[in-house]
């Protein structure tokens, strides 16, 4: 064995710990997760197939909560042909699929994955593809300007992070001096489509079949337009290494058979009414030359170091979200606390409802409500009261500010309330007795003392807020976590970029923690014991 550096050892230990800890809470794994692939049970090998399960009609959950779709049907047909193997299906998020494949939670991925050099360096692809995705431009019904990639210049184009379609756009930008402004989205295509209809985006690129399905399902006023941008073959993906070789070659063989006896195209026709499985020459060629001989390491420290500054660049976004939300949250929290303390009629009901709602619902839901709900309400106002605000031009980060501020405000209001109530009543009485008004007494005497009491709690809130901001990418705001996902999706080195982001968050929190304790010390000058 070769010697590992100390850092590498430490990081691996850290990772193992994380895996153990998260392993305790992960639920979506029917078979025993530890090395199920290697255990041979009565001669039948269990194969766990990872898929997103949200990618209709390729893989999704039906009314009975069963995974189904084109991808699943193809694997099922393979299952039928391989007597010595039994296939199980697990739904997980895009990035977890690859992490799970590496950590042997899954043995293969069936999720319309396309091939590129970087992916091939890390994972193993069989010779046979099982689908040809036709990438197409999607625009609003009333848009007759955009017909080709060149028409996207100067436009806002949304795309799910890590997809082939994102790569098409990135490649175009690389070759043409970045004329397209790419907006990255997390996961599902439907948020991208909805934002095109809402006018937040001009277009997207996606699989024609998928897009049509979603547009129909969601009743959106969108259309696919122009010639196909490109066709992209999809593959099943396997882990590199000897334990996976047998599985891969058997699946590959079965696919060959299915292609030649026409079963594969039958499945395609069943789902799409069309055969999308024909092999194009170009694909074959690509498959032949792309094989690179690189063994995937558990951790690529070099890559980690290289991508670190790329992710760090987005630290200001994270800090900005946290700071703005904290400040606005403090104001909202103070007002709410005062309304509750003084039992202001009517307002106190609103305040109670607000705090109870925010504390009783997930932040994620609040973000969606803010991002999709507020424009709907504004749009309604616009059409009913002839308002002249252009809702679609509000940047997504504003909705992040709104939801995080409201969320933080609700939690802080309780901290602030108890801090104000913890200030001795005699302090305000003394202020009254020297002729000060309630407002003066509050501002000059009570609040400063309450601040000292609440400061440690404020510090904790700010640190949790900082970490909660990692959800911002959900509504297409690229922060530390969002950038990590974008960078990671490009190379599929999720481990490395997540460690990078963990380090960045950690460092920020260390600095913030230090800052808070300095502030506490300064604020505590009049609480300390006898000073000389």
């Amino acid at each position, binding site marked *: 064995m070769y010697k590992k550096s100390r850092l590498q050892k430490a990081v691996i230990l850290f990772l193992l710990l994380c895996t153990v800890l998260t392993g305790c809470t992960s639920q979506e794994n029917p078979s025993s997760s530890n090395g199920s692939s290697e255990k041979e049970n009565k001669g039948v090998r269990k194969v766990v197939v990872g898929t997103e399960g949200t990618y209709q009609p390729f893989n999704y959950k039906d009314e009975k909560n069963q995974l189904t779709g084109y991808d699943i049907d193809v694997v099922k047909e393979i299952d039928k042909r391989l007597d010595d193997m039994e296939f199980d299906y697990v739904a997980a998020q895009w990035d977890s699929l690859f992490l799970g494949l590496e950590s042997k939670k899954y043995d293969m991925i069936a999720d319309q994955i396309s091939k590129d050099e970087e992916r091939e360096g890390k994972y193993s692809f069989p010779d046979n593809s099982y689908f040809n995705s036709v990438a197409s431009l999607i625009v609003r019904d009333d848009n007759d300007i955009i017909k080709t990639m060149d028409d996207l210049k100067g436009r806002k184009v949304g795309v799910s992070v890590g997809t082939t379609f994102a790569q098409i756009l990135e490649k175009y930008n690389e070759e043409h001096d970045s004329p397209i402004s790419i907006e990255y989205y997390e996961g599902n295509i439907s948020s991208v489509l909805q934002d095109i209809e809402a006018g937040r985006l001009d277009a997207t690129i996606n699989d024609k079949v998928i897009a049509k399905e979603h547009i129909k399902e969601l009743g959106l006023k969108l259309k696919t337009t122009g010639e196909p941008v490109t066709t992209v073959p999809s593959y099943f993906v396997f882990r590199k290494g000897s334990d996976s070789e047998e599985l891969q070659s058997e699946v590959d063989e079965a696919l060959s058979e299915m292609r030649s006896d026409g079963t594969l195209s039958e499945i395609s026709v069943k789902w799409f009414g069309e055969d999308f499985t024909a092999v194009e020459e170009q694909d074959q060629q690509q498959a032949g030359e792309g094989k690179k001989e690189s063994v995937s390491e558990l951790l690529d420290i070099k890559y980690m170091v290289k991508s670190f500054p790329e992710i760090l660049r987005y630290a200001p976004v994270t800090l900005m979200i946290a700071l703005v939300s904290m400040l606005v949250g403090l104001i909202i929290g103070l007002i709410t606390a005062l309304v509750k303390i003084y039992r202001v009629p009517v307002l106190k009901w609103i305040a109670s409802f607000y705090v109870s709602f925010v504390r009783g619902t997930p932040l994620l839901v609040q973000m969606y409500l803010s991002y999709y709900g507020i424009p709907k309400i504004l749009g309604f106002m616009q059409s009913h009261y002839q308002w002249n605000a252009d809702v679609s031009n509000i940047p997504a980060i504003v909705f992040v500010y709104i939801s995080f501020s409201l969320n933080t405000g609700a939690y802080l209001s309780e901290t602030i309330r108890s801090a104000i109530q913890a200030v*001795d009543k*005699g*302090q305000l*009485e*003394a*202020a*009254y*007795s*020297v*002729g*000060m*008004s309630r407002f*003066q007494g509050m501002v*000059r*005497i009570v609040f*400063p*003392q309450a601040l*000292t009491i609440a400061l440690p709690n404020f510090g904790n809130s700010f640190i949790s807020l900082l970490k909660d901001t990692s959800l911002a990418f959900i509504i297409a705001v690229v922060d530390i976590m969002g950038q990590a996902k974008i960078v990671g999706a490009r190379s599929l080195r999720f481990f490395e970029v997540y460690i990078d982001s963990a380090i960045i968050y950690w460092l920020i929190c260390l600095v913030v923690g230090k800052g808070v304790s300095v502030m506490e010390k300064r604020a505590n*000058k*009049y*609480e*300390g*014991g*006898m*000073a000389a």
Partner: protein
Amino acid sequence: MIEINNMHKSFYKNEVLKGIGFHIKKGEVYVILGPSGSGKSTLLRCINFLEKPDKGRIQIGGLTVEVGKTNRKQITELRKRTAMVFQHYNLFRNKTSVENVMEGLVTAQKMDKKEAYEKSVSYLEKVGLEDRLNYYPCQLSGGQQQRVGIARAMALDPGVIMFDEPTSALDPELVGEVLDVMKSVARDGRTMIVVTHEIEFAKEVASHVLFMDGGVIVEEGRPSEVIDHPQEDRTKQFLSRVTHDKLRMVQ
């Protein structure tokens, strides 16, 4: 100078003040004696509306406040004409000695900061704390804190300074320094209402003594009358108990 008429106050069904009234001339020192729960502190707190009285009339200087017909401005005005020294000092914890004295001058009376500072320093000198100007309350002893409290009240130049058991929370060895300062306040010619259990102080300083029990004034008059020759049984009882306690403590 100060006139209180028919002051009533109840907490829920418990009537604490049952129609108190008295008249204080400028420069007089009124000492209110009485067992605990007799309503002494409530009376003081009603005079500057820290508790809202149920009924009554308060006149200070030219200002007349009729309970039930007050507005916020009137109450602020009333508070500007009174000052209070609290049992638990109630110094502003987030402010130094000199800032404590300045606060009312600058914030309520809108005095120029520099002027307020100089005035505050001179009053802190009067109470013997010129070397503690920049100390926070937590850095001062109880006696020192209460002296700052007295300086804070005096600096406001109010029509009356009310002392609410100013020595009750102090360690016995610190009581003397505070009483000495209070005597000097009296010698200054300030109008004072003092709620206390310090009989000796009352004898020496008071121009008038009120004995309260059960929400009413039981007996009043000069100290030589009320303290040395009490007429009412309740007064006699109280005085003998207090002096007895005092003796036991001294022993």
